[in-house]
């Protein structure tokens, strides 16, 4: 806490008139010391990013600093002119963002985008800029630097882009690096690499890092100190270990509690009767192809055989591109597999023609990832819930009654039926999504990243609802997720996918505690904060 390089004092940021609250950030004060990693944690809308944006002078239109100071190197940077802020930005305070896919200019070469930082601050000659860009690319661990600096962003993977972003932010050796959810959009193994990179760079350059995240796992991984924000205010601040282990504020506790712990459940008694049998399923995507060039093939699902027993929750985990979503969609026949069988209740869904399929659709239902895209914005909830049953032959009145019942069951109340989707929050919509799946009385539910888009506390509520429903209704669920901790919490068995193949299948306990395959081990090791969250329980198990 000695020697603060940045000192924020009673910062208040005003939102434009008509917003849902008057201030984005209210009366926030904290210090940032040299070489320190400070994590700012909070859920969406907590104001955690606004603080950073205010510092950089990058507040959205209409949002203004109301009160407070931000003293950096003896100067309050908030009232500085745009020109002086420009001089500060990039040179003394660097920043990286959440979406590496969109944060780079798609039309400029990586090298040019890095060199541009020097140009912006009128440093170095042209050739020198290039040499430095090359060195930076090397430093952030990008392979084949010569090639990378000539590449365009679309030619890089997400992790590589984030490294390139970091290279830009570090170009002028800033005293402060602001990282705004820099790993949220990345796969878990990539996230681990980026976190290690940031730690290493901090070590080497001694810069202070203000790391904004919603993920306590990440906090456990890298934070020296933590600030927890809620509704624009700081609710708790302290050393990382203190906050994580002995949270003082109830909100912090709630947040920590909401995090799936990695505590694995006891083995469930599983019936032998299968709810779903997948046999030798294959799906190949062919892209391009034409008169002049061969098609490119991606084996999204490669000879997968898998069974889910009645009443079982099977977790399907893997990183992006592993084929787990394709497998899920193939099971419900939103994707038609190239070969193999999908047996549900004795019917091979993979083999049905369009008409027969329509009649059998009700057997498997899906809960989708994006709560904002999964409901037709032009239909009332009642219609979204009853169209399917009515098409299946349920009398209209009965379908409507059932829809209201289900809305009650998922905790929204029957009144929700007459409203439109835009009147609900993300978590509520996900409940509606669950109700919709249930309305069809399915034999199997596929939950495709069903809680990934939700804030931790909401996530916990929805997971609790699922667990509750499962207990009450004996649901069979294929639970697709990238989040191993979530999987560990709700699943009976885990199936790990990589490159379209099943790598490992087994009870959660076995897979987590005694992974057989190197990839599974790598995956588990990469989970941020894993050591902290899983370890104590794991030992006891």
């Amino acid at each position: 806490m000695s020697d603060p390089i940045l000192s924020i004092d009673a910062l208040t940021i005003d939102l434009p008139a008509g917003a849902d609250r008057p201030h984005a950030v209210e009366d926030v004060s904290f210090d940032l010391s040299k070489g320190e990693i400070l994590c700012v944690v909070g859920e969406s809308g907590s104001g955690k990013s606004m603080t950073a944006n205010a510092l950089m002078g990058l507040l959205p239109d209409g949002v203004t600093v109301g009160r407070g100071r931000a003293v950096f190197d003896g100067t309050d940077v908030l009232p500085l002119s745009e020109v002086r802020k420009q001089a500060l930005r990039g040179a003394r305070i660097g920043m990286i963002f959440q979406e590496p896919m969109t944060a780079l200019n798609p039309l400029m070469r990586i090298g040019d985008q890095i060199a541009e930082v020097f140009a912006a601050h009128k440093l170095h000659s042209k050739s020198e800029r290039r040499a430095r860009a090359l060195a930076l690319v090397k430093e952030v661990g990008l392979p084949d630097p010569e090639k990378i600096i000539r590449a365009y962003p679309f030619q890089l993977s997400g992790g590589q882009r984030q490294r390139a972003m970091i290279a830009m932010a570090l170009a002028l050796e800033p005293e402060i690096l602001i990282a705004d959810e820099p790993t949220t959009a990345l796969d878990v193994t990539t996230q681990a690499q980026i976190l290690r990179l940031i730690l290493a760079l901090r070590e080497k350059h001694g810069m202070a890092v203000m790391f904004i995240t919603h993920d306590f796992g990440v906090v456990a991984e890298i934070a020296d100190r933590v600030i927890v924000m809620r509704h624009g205010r700081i609710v708790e601040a302290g050393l990382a270990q203190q906050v994580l282990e002995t949270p003082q504020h109830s909100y912090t506790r709630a947040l920590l509690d909401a995090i799936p712990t990695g505590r694995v459940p006891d083995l469930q008694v599983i019936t032998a009767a299968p709810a779903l049998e997948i046999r030798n399923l294959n799906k190949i995507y062919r892209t391009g192809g034409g008169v002049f060039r061969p098609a490119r093939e991606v084996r999204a699902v490669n000879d997968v055989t898998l069974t889910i027993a009645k009443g079982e929750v099977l977790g399907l985990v893997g990183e992006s591109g592993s084929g787990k979503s394709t497998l899920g969609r193939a099971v419900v026949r939103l994707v038609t597999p190239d070969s193999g069988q999908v047996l549900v209740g004795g019917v091979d869904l993979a083999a049905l023609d369009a008409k027969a399929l329509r009649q059998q659709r009700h057997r498997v239902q899906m809960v989708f990832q994006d709560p904002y895209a999964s409901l037709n914005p032009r239909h009332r909830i009642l219609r979204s819930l009853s169209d399917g049953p009515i098409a299946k032959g349920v009398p209209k009145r009965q379908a409507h009654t059932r829809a209201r019942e289900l809305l009650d069951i998922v905790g929204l109340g029957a009144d929700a039926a007459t409203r439109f989707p835009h009147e609900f929050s993300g978590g509520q919509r996900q409940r509606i999504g669950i109700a919709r799946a249930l309305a069809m009385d399915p034999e199997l539910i596929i939950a495709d990243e069903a809680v990934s888009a939700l804030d931790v506390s909401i996530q916990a509520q929805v997971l609790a609802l699922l667990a509750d429903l499962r207990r009450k209704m004996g649901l069979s669920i294929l639970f697709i997720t990238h989040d191993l901790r979530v999987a560990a919490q709700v699943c009976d068995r885990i199936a790990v996918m990589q490159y379209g193949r099943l790598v490992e299948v087994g009870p959660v306990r076995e897979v987590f505690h005694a992974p057989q395959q190197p990839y599974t081990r790598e995956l588990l090791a990469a989970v941020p904060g894993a050591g902290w969250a899983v370890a104590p329980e794991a030992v006891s198990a």
Partner: protein
Amino acid sequence: MSLLTTIFGRLIKAVLTLLAIAVLNFFLIHAAPGDPAAVIAGEAGAADPLFIAQLRERFGLDQPLYVQLWSYVKNVLTLDLGYSFRQGMPVYDLIADRLPATLLLTLSSFVISLSLGIAFGVAAAARVGKASDSILTTIALLFYATPLYWAALMAVLVFSVQLGWLPGFGYETVGSGYSGLQRTWDILQHLILPALTLGLFFMAVYMRMTRASMLEVSQMDFVKTARAKGLSGAVIRRRHILRNALLPVVTLAGLQAGQLIGGAVLTETVFAWPGIGRLMFESLEARDYNTILGVFLVSAAMVILFNILTDIVYRLVDPRIGAKS
């Protein structure tokens, strides 16, 4: 996929499209009442049926329609556009005579509209919400809503007749004996009014699009990145926003540029500009089948050419295209 194979593929498609256009237009035009023989005879003033029959035989119009179509398609495939009944010369020569004037008019108005449109669009976007933005936007909207021919007539009335600043019609001063620079200057003066009238309408289109596109791109993440680097507003606008914002404008411009060729009929009529738009209109009235078909083919070919050019430009500007597959 390399640029060359793309272009090659596009060319094959283009040939097929052109053939289809030739066939469709062939039937359309033959469906019109009257035929060139009747029109030519009509102009002669006193044709007996014998004379008309002679004409039809000479033009091959006495053949069954499918035979005429077949011979036309054969000709087109050998790049022969046939012979103009009305003008008594090869259609190719007729079009070659007229095309330069049309190209000069349309390309200059294209350049005017695109450059002014982009410039004003950028300016308006930079001042969004301010009075100067509203003024620019409103002016563009007015140009956009004004009937082209009406604006043309008014322009002649004001600048040519009342003020006498510029020639009101024609391509050059006839029989002036000018050559070299003098002639160029002369043509340029004749070009100003038609090119401006035609250009201002499209300028409005490009300006609106550029403005909207600039505003949209300026909301994107990488613009924030650029600001975080400490770049100045002007550099960000030029290097980051504009380049990305121009992509949709390029697409639209490519589409419009091709259409301009065939769409200059009105301007060419009012300004007596000796281009192919007028040639088409006159040939249509005269049922000069081969000439109309020829003009259609050439303008469609121009559309395709411009589409291909747009593609190339697009590929040069946007590295993502073409590398994707």
